[in-house]
C-alpha cells in the first residue's frame, strides 16, 4: 500500500530551540502506528505540524504522494487529517448529532433533525459503539465525548486520525472500548497515529512504533521487533555530557514532613512519603501522573480528601494556601505566567506579594523602602538580572522570572519548599544557577520537594526520587544510584510488570 501521509525531513524551531529536527514519518492506510517519546521529545509539535496549527520551517509533507502545505487547520482537515486529544473538544450545549456534523459545510441550510440524528447514529455505529444522538455533550463521560470527536473526524472523511494520549484519563473498560474503535477504523482503511505514555498499550494495539527524542527520529520498527526495554532505552538514551554534576547531600536526617496515605478521589491515592530537613526529594513521572496534584494538595490549593500530614511531628490538615504558608510551606508553580507572577508588576512588588503584612504599617500603609531593600537583597543573592527593581517582570527572561518566583516564596522563609518544574523553558546557564540556589537552600535546612519531568535534573539534584504513575507512588530510588532507564521504566511500565523496587 502506498503511504497516505509522508513527512520528510520536517524541522521546526521556536526561538533558539529546535523542537523538530529533520523528522520523518510515514503513515500507511489500515495500520496503527504508535509514537513514543519522553516529555518534551517534540510529539506535540509534530502533531501541530500535521494538523496545520504550526507550519514547518523546512521539509516536505506529502498526502497520497502529492506535496501539500497546511496554512491552517482547515487545510489539514480538507486533506483528511484529524486529531483527537486527551481533553475532548466538544460543544457541551449541543447534542451528540450536532457535535458530529457542526463543521459540515455541504449539508443543507435547513436542518432536518430526524435525518441528522439517524446519520449520527449510523456514524457512531461504524465505530462499533452506541450512543444516543440527542443527548447533550455535557452529559457524556470523557470517553463518550472522545467517541463523539472520533465520529466527527470520520464523518469528515478523515483518513489519518491522530490520537494524542487518548487513554490518559480513561478507565480500563473505556480504554478497551477505545481500542475497539481504533481497530475498527484501521479495518476500514484509516491510518491511525497513536500516541501514548503507556507502553503496554502499544503492544496491544499498534502495528508499527516510532521512537522520537529531542525532536529527532530515533527508530521505526514493527511492534513485533521491539520490547519495552528497547523502547525505553531509545527514549532516554542521551550522552553523559548533558548531565549536571551531583553534590553531596545536605540531608540532616530530621523528618520535617510526613505524609501518610494521602488521597484525592479521581486524582491520586496511597501517597506516603517523608522529607527531611535539608533533603531534596524529587517526584518523577510522566505528564498526567498527578505529581502536581500532590503538590497542590500539600499547599492547600486543591486539598486532599483523605490521609494524614505531619509537619515537624504535628498533625495538620491543610485546607488553604494561606494556612499552608503559615505552616511554613511555599509552592513555586510550574506555570510562571498564569499562576506565579503578576507580569505587569515590578520585581519588588512580586517578591513581597505573599508577605504584604510584613511591610504594612498603620492603616495598611506599605513601607516601600523596606520592600525595596528586601527585594534588592534577593536580587543580589539570586543574581536576578534586571535594569532595576520596578521593571515589569513580564519583560525579563524566563530564567530571571523563575528567580523572581523563587525569591517571592523564599521571602516567606519556608521550612518546606515545593517547586514544580523549576527549570522548564529556561536556558542552561540559568538552569545551573537555579539548581545551585536549591542546593544552597537545602544546606540551610529547608526541606525541598521538586516535581520535575527533566530526568537529568532529577538525577543531579535528588537525594531521593519518588516515581509516580497514574496517581500512585510506584517506586523509590536513592538519587546517587538511579539511572535514566531505571526511573523511566518505572514511570511507564504496566502495573503487572512492576517489580518491587519500592
Amino acid at each position, binding site marked *: 500500500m502506498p503511504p497516505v501521509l509522508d513527512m520528510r525531513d520536517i524541522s521546526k524551531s521556536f526561538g533558539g530551540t529546535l523542537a523538530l529536527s529533520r523528522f520523518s514519518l510515514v503513515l500507511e492506510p489500515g495500520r496503527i502506528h504508535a509514537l513514543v517519546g519522553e516529555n518534551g521529545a517534540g510529539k506535540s509539535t509534530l502533531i501541530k505540524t500535521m494538523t496545520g496549527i504550526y507550519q514547518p520551517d523546512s521539509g516536505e509533507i506529502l498526502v497520497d504522494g502529492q506535496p501539500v502545505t497546511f496554512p491552517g487547520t482547515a487545510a489539514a482537515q480538507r486533506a483528511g487529517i484529524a486529531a483527537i486529544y486527551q481533553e475532548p473538544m466538544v460543544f457541551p450545549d449541543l447534542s451528540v448529532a450536532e457535535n458530529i456534523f*457542526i463543521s459540515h459545510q455541504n449539508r443543507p441550510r435547513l436542518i432536518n433533525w430526524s435525518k441528522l440524528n439517524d446519520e449520527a447514529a449510523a456514524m457512531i455505529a461504524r465505530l462499533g459503539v452506541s450512543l444516543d444522538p440527542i443527548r447533550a455533550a455535557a452529559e457524556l463521560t470523557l470517553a463518550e465525548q472522545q467517541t463523539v470527536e472520533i465520529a466527527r473526524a470520520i464523518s469528515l472523511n478523515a483518513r489519518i486520525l491522530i490520537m494524542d494520549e487518548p487513554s490518559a484519563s480513561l478507565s480500563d473498560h473505556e480504554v478497551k472500548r477505545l481500542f475497539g474503535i481504533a481497530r475498527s477504523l484501521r479495518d476500514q482503511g484509516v491510518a491511525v497515529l497513536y500516541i501514548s505514555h503507556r507502553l503496554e498499550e502499544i503492544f496491544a494495539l499498534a502495528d508499527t512504533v516510532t521512537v522520537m527524542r529531542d525532536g529527532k527520529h530515533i527508530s521505526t520498527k514493527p511492534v513485533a521487533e521491539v520490547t519495552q526495554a528497547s523502547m525505553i532505552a531509545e527514549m532516554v538514551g542521551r550522552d553523559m555530557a548533558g548531565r549536571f554534576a551531583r553534590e553531596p547531600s545536605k540531608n540532616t536526617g530530621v523528618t520535617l514532613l510526613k505524609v501518610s496515605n494521602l488521597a484525592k478521589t479521581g486524582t491520586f491515592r496511597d501517597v506516603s512519603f517523608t522529607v527531611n530537613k535539608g533533603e531534596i526529594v524529587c517526584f518523577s513521572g510522566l505528564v498526567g501522573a498527578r505529581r502536581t496534584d500532590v503538590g497542590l494538595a500539600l499547599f492547600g490549593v486543591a486539598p486532599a480528601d483523605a490521609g494524614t500530614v505531619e509537619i515537624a511531628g504535628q498533625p495538620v490538615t491543610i485546607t488553604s494556601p494561606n494556612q499552608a504558608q503559615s505552616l511554613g510551606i511555599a509552592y513555586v508553580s510550574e506555570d510562571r505566567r498564569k499562576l506565579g507572577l503578576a507580569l505587569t508588576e515590578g520585581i519588588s512588588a512580586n517578591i513581597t506579594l505573599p508577605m504584604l503584612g510584613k511591610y504594612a504599617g498603620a492603616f495598611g500603609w506599605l513601607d516601600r523602602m523596606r520592600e525595596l531593600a528586601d527585594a534588592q537583597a534577593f536580587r543580589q543573592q539570586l543574581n536576578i538580572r534586571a535594569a532595576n527593581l520596578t521593571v515589569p517582570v513580564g519583560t525579563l527572561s524566563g530564567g530571571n522570572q523563575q528567580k523572581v518566583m523563587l525569591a517571592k516564596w523564599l521571602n516567606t522563609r519556608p521550612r518546606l519548599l515545593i517547586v514544580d518544574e523549576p527549570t522548564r523553558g529556561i536556558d542552561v546557564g540559568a538552569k545551573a544557577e537555579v539548581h545551585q540556589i536549591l542546593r544552597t537552600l537545602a544546606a540551610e535546612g529547608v526541606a525541598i520537594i521538586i516535581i520535575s519531568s527533566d530526568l537529568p535534573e532529577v538525577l543531579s539534584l535528588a537525594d531521593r526520587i519518588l516515581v509516580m504513575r497514574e496517581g500512585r507512588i510506584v517506586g523509590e530510588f536513592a538519587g546517587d544510584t538511579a539511572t535514566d532507564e531505571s526511573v523511566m521504566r518505572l514511570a511507564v511500565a504496566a502495573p503487572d510488570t512492576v517489580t518491587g523496587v519500592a
Partner: protein
Amino acid sequence: MRVPLGTLRILVLLAVFVATGLFFASQIDGYLNARLFNRISGSVAVIALIAVGQAFVVLTRNIDLSIGSVVGGTAYFTGGILIAYPGLPPMLVPFLAMAIGAVFGAANGFLVARFRLPSIIVTLATLAIFRSILVQSSDGSSITTDRLPPWLTEFATMNAFTVGDLQIRWIVVISVLVVLTAHIFLTRFRAGRTFFAIGSNPDAAAFAGIDAGRTIFLAFVISGALAGLAGFMFLSRFGNITVVAGLGLELKSVGAVVVGGVNIFGGSGNVLGVLIGAALIDLIDTSLVRWALVSAFWREAVLGLLILLAVAADTVLMRRLLRRKPTGGAP
C-alpha cells in the same frame, strides 16, 4: 420518557408566569381582565424584540448594554425623519428604523469582532456614546405627537384582530412573528446553530472552522436591527420622544434573556423562553404599580431580584447536570 432540559425550562417558566398572574389576581381586585392583557401585550411586544436581539448576542458569550440607547436613538431619528418627510410610505418606516438600529449594532459588532474587545466594555461605552449622539443631534428638543403623521401614533393601537374583549394589536403580531422567525432560524438552520456553537466552546468552534468573528458581528447587527424595530414601536406607542427615551431597557432585555433561560455564559437557550421571560418581567412590573402592599418604587429591585434568582437557579441546575457526569479519572 425524559423531558429535554430546554422543554422543561419553558414549562417551568409558563408555570411561574401563570402562578404570578394568579398571585396578583388574589391581591388586586378586578385584576384579570381584558384591559390588563391589552396594556401588557403592547409593552411586551417592545421588550420581546430587544430581548430576542439580546439573546442572539448572549448566545455568543457577549452582551449588548447599548440596547436602550439604540431604541431611544432610532425612535428619535425615525421621528425626526418623519417630521421632515411626512409623506414617506408607512410600509417603509419600520425598515428604515431597523436599518438605523443595524448601523448602531454594526458599530458594536465591528469593535467586538474585529478588535476582540470585551463586549461588556464596548457596549457600555457605546451606551453612553449613542445616547450623547442623540442628545447632541436633538439639541435637547423633543419629538412630540402633534408633529408626527397621524398614522404613526394610531398604528400602536391598531388591532390585527380581536378575540372577545382581547385586542390583538399589530405590534404584538409583528413581535410574535419576529420571535417565531428567530426561533426557527436558531433551531432549524445551520447558520443559527453557529451562534450556539461559538458560545458553547469557542476553541472547538475555531477548530471546526466556524468564523466566530462573522457570527458575533451578525449577532450585534441583529440586536441593533431589532432594537431599531423596537424603537419604531416605541415611537408609535408614545409619540413624545425625549432624550431619555429607552433609558434602562438594557436591564429589561438582559433580565428577559436570563429569566427566559438563556445561559449568560453563552451556548444554550431558547427565544420562546425569552418571550415568556419578557412577558413575566412586564407582568410583574405592571402589577406592582397596582399592588397596594408594595411601593411601586421597588419595581427595579424586584426585576434585579428576579435576574439573580434566575441566574442562581440556572447555575445550580447546570452544576447538578455536570456532577451527574461520571468521569473516568485516574484511579
